[in-house]
């Protein structure tokens, strides 16, 4: 492999940070969801990179990456349903305005 493990991990860390920024700073709930997708992908890059460089004979890394994708699908479905439901009830998808839990 021409590209060492730490490069992969660096890229994944960067993608994770970008995703986290999106989650924390987007006003639109769908934007938050996009950030979460980026973070999950960053985790997946890590899993696959670790598999490739540290335990290439085992399958754990790939299997877990598949699980993560499965969870991401479930999360997207449920998250978008919640957003659409909130939109119907509150006429907004702005996260700041969905503050029923406020004091």
């Amino acid at each position: 492999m021409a590209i060492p493990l730490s490069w992969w991990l660096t890229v994944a860390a960067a993608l994770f940070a970008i995703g986290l920024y999106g989650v924390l700073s987007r006003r639109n709930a769908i934007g938050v969801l996009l950030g979460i997708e980026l973070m999950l992908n960053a985790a997946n890059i890590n899993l696959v990179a670790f598999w490739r460089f540290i335990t290439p004979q085992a399958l754990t890394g790939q299997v877990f990456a598949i699980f993560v994708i499965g969870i991401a699908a479930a999360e997207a479905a449920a998250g978008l349903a919640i957003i659409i439901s909130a939109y119907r009830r509150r006429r907004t998808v702005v996260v700041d305005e969905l503050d029923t839990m406020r004091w």
Partner: protein
Amino acid sequence: MDFLFSFTPLIPLFPLLAFAVIVLFTYRYNRLSSDIAIGSIALSTVLAWAVLLATLLGGEHIQVEGWQLRVPWLPAGTTVLDLGFAVDGFTAAMLFMVPFVCLMIFIYSQGYMKLGQPDQDPRYARFFAYISLFAAGMLGLVVARDLVLLFVSWEIMGLCSYLLIGFWSFRKADDEHHIDEAQVIRARKAALKAFITTRIGDVLLFSGIALLYSYTGTVTLREIFRPETLETLQTISLLGMPAVTVIALLVFGGAVGKSAQFPLHVWLPDAMEGPTPVSALIHAATMVAAGVYLVARMLPLFIAGFEVADAPALHWVAIVGAITALLGATIGLAQDDIKRVLAYSTISQLGYMMMGLGLGSLVAGIFHLLTHAFFKALLFLGAGSVIHGVEHGHHVAAHADHVHTEHFNPNDMKAMGGLRHRMPYTFVAYLAGTLALVGIVPFAGFWSKDEILAEAFHLWRADGALNLPFWVWLAGTLGAFFTALYMGRQLGLVFWGEPRHTAARHAHESPSSMTIPLIVLALFALLFGFVNAPFLGSPLHHFMGGVHEASEVVHAEAVPFNFTVAAISTVLAVAGLLLGWLLYRNYRPGQVEPFQVVLGPVFTLLRNKYYIDELYQQVIIRPVVWLSNFCFNIDDRWIIDPFVDLVGAAGRVASDIVRVLDSVVVDRWFVEGTAQLFNAAGRGLRYSETGRVQNYLLVVAVTILLLLGLYLYF
């Protein structure tokens, strides 16, 4: 007889099945449901006693080495989690007590929940489903071979305690049955409090189990207690301590929550809001016993930590136990609710058990656990019978006079009095329970309490100096006096004197489904102590003392009977009992309490339970909110608003300080003043709850960042 051991997995399975069957199929049929529940626990009792018999006949080999069964359960990649069952002398001893006491409570519940009567509980079948699940949890805990099953059972009990303590939160406020809204809300809050408070302990326990697994690669108790494994754990350093000490402390944290030890004891008195059989179940055979059982099971870890560390976990067990024993016993002096007195008594007795374990003696702690289970179940069921009788009396009186006396609390001891004539069976049984709890020869409590005190005394004399065992002994002996005092007060208030309320005048004896379990348990309270009586050669010691021998760190030998210790505690117990009884036997309504006359302001402090609940509300719950406040106020949009609020709040706090100082000087209590101060501060801080998910997430991110930074730094 070894084939009997293969029945072990069935012991928790029957009540579990009963739960499933009732919830899924028979919930419409009340009598059938309760019969299924009682039948299943009776089957479990028979099997458990068969296993006990096999252990008794199996000799030392079985009692020490034990029998075990491994069931591969969850394959997860390269590791497989096992679900195992194991029996040794210790488990067998628990198996004698747990299902039997549960059976008694189940039978009693049939009467208490008024089967077949017009005012039968509307959720009767569900009640039996829940208590069956509860019993399944406790039995699963006892027969667990691995920490996985142990933790699962532990959590099942946590869930059931929530469901059962809050069982009456679904009742409708109703004049006919004297249920008011406040009572329903109290039940709801008590359930949440129990759940959340024990959860703190559960998290600690789970971290302990996770650490154990990560260091040893196994969750099987016997493998962990192998000398090599313990040695490895002793050499690993974690947070500046040997890993074994850290793990032992975490496990103890779990036990502190479950067994209601100081400082997490606050949930247990509130748990009285549930139906009385639930209190008996929680306080005697199951929930609180689970924590003590866990510490006893993990004792090799504690002692291994004791060998190497400067701050041994074992000492903490003894210290917390001693504090709890005294704390519970003193608060019990000043409570009016018949069940709350017993609740604080339970807290105090659990402290005794922890003291015994903290001195390194498995048998002393567990012996007290077993005897306590019998007599405390008896006392709770007796209290339930009293409440039942008084409630009935109130009903009769109300119907006769066609007036509803408002605000009648059937648990209030001050509204009782003279019940020994009206409820003779209950009275005799209650007296037996009291004598056992107080520790009068030859009742069960005498032998077990004496063993703990003798152990402490022995360790003290062996060393000579004023060491920890001395303080433990002192706390235990003082606690014994207070125990006798509050029980004397209770007897005097409930059973002697003149009835202080029409309800007490019309009270009558409970049905036989309630009195028969009482009589049976009373016999056990009288006789059970002999299983470890020194003059019989301490049979329990020989039976279960050796279970931790294989770990090579626990050495159990019976401490010889010490006449001095027994004499001191017995004299104090008799004195306390008589004193309490004399002072309260002719108590008249409206009279200032004799204890208040003697103790003055201290009595107020005790009545308010040392203000610990108030302290937690302000010191633990508010700062959680405060932490988020701290992070958000940095931000510019909210810096204006909270600033204004904060100035306002600060002004309010300042004025409160002045006012509180003032009132302290004038008439108020210092402690109460502190509570008010915290309250005012809290009111200002609640504005940090913005309800915006991204604020919360930011806090999460910052926390993770800090933890990562810490990880790098170290």
